[in-house]
């Protein structure tokens, strides 16, 4: 049942991402939250989705160039993390980072699959022309909607597979060989890199200076507050 929900949400996200609407609902921060909601742990979804959003902030479809499939990657990572978290008392940083490492490559696989659908869609264009020549303009126009099936199917198949791999492997690793490792620090390292990736996506002349200024000023404020309230290492 949970995997069915992951499949449906991942498939719909793949459609929303390119074929219909494009209202940011397939962006990691939204999709991971939705997956968390569907699987009964909104907070876990948000925890995973926020860094993924920044990490893939530059995943943008410009002209004919295809970015990585951030929605497919997100669905698998968030689904895997929430499901693995069920056995471990919630989505901890340890669960999040292992789910990320296991399922993130799906985003790249999704890009390749999308390239394939673009070739398949040439057949749809030919079919539309053929319908038009038979004197059925309304039917020819509607061929467009058939293009929604392949992206849905690809994500609806791959996302639950990735989520299942993570959901099965993560509890074993966290309770077994990786039990003594400080994995949480790995998640925070990834989250920091995600901020850097987000800043890099903002291509403006002053973006570099502003990014470092905000980082340093914010860090100074945080350290000051910690000092005052007496948080110790």
């Amino acid at each position, binding site marked *: 049942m949970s995997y069915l929900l992951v499949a449906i949400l991942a498939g719909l996200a793949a459609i929303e991402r*390119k*074929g*219909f609407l*494009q209202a*940011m609902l397939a*962006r990691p*921060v939204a999709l991971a*939250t939705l997956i968390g*909601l569907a699987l009964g742990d909104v907070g876990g*979804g*948000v925890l995973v*989705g*926020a860094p993924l*959003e*920044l990490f893939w*902030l530059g995943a*943008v479809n*410009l*002209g*004919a160039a295809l970015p990585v499939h951030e929605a497919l990657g997100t669905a698998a990572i968030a689904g895997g993390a929430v499901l693995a978290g069920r056995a471990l008392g919630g989505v901890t*940083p340890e669960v999040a980072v292992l789910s990320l490492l296991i399922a993130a490559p799906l985003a*790249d696989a999704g890009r390749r699959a999308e390239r394939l659908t673009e*070739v398949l*869609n040439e057949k749809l*264009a030919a079919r539309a*022309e053929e319908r038009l020549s038979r*004197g059925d*303009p*309304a039917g020819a*126009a509607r061929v*467009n*909607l058939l293009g*929604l099936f392949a992206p849905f199917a690809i994500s609806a198949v791959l996302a639950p597979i990735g989520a299942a791999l993570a959901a099965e492997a993560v509890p074993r690793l966290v309770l077994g060989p990786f039990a003594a*490792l*400080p*994995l949480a620090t*790995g*998640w*925070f*390292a*990834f*989250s*920091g890199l995600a*901020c*850097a*990736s*987000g*800043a*890099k*996506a*903002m291509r403006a*002349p002053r973006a570099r200076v502003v*990014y470092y200024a*905000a*980082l*340093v000023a*914010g860090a100074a404020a*945080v*350290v000051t507050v910690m000092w005052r309230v007496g*948080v110790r290492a």
Partner: protein
Amino acid sequence: MTVPTRTLLRVFWRSLFLQAAWNRRGMQNLGFAYAIDPALAALYPEPERRREALARHLGFFNCHPYTAAAILGGTIYHEERVARGEEPAGNPVLYKSTLQGPLAAIGDGFFWTALRPFFGALAALGALAVGWPAVVITLAIYNLVHLALRYGLFRDGYRKGDGIVADVARLALPVFADRLRVAGAFVCGLTAALLLWRGALQAGFLSGAVALAAAAFGYLALLGGARLLPAAYVIVVAGVGAALFAARWHGSS
């Protein structure tokens, strides 16, 4: 010969499916034909003329999915004139091919590389700071702007035809785009500082410090051409390694 308002709304709804069958040869050609078909059906009751009209819109088309709404509206403006016999049938296609490049550049430069990433970064920061309500509010604001501009462009394109060019220029989107990108970089920097706080509280000061260091040095590495996904694996291993090293050093001292 004019297109009824109901039909225009139907065309706008269909324009949301512009990239449903994006393909390497015609790109958004099927999507454009699908969107404009109800308007053509209203303008050309004779089957042969409608067939010709749809056939010309199955030719190559590619634009940004939001700003393409302006071209769709303007193309209906021109098709109305063709249907009335005031313009040659080649004009709508000429209009499309003239505007698609510039409007694609404006749409990519404003929506895809400025407005959406800015709201994405804001949603991420809000999500980490206060949780899911921040995501809902941020996305609602983004879509208010998105749908207002998308529908406004469609309506103005239909009303003004070629005049839409001056309208889009007046919006000064590239100026706003630059400000949004700078603001977005600011939000990313703040998020890194928030991670220092979060990491320190959840997993020890070292985790927060590692997040901050990853944000600072990761940026340089990515600007230097490091690939994103491999960089993620390297930084996770480096973070865990740093924590192991610190624990051992702390333990032996």
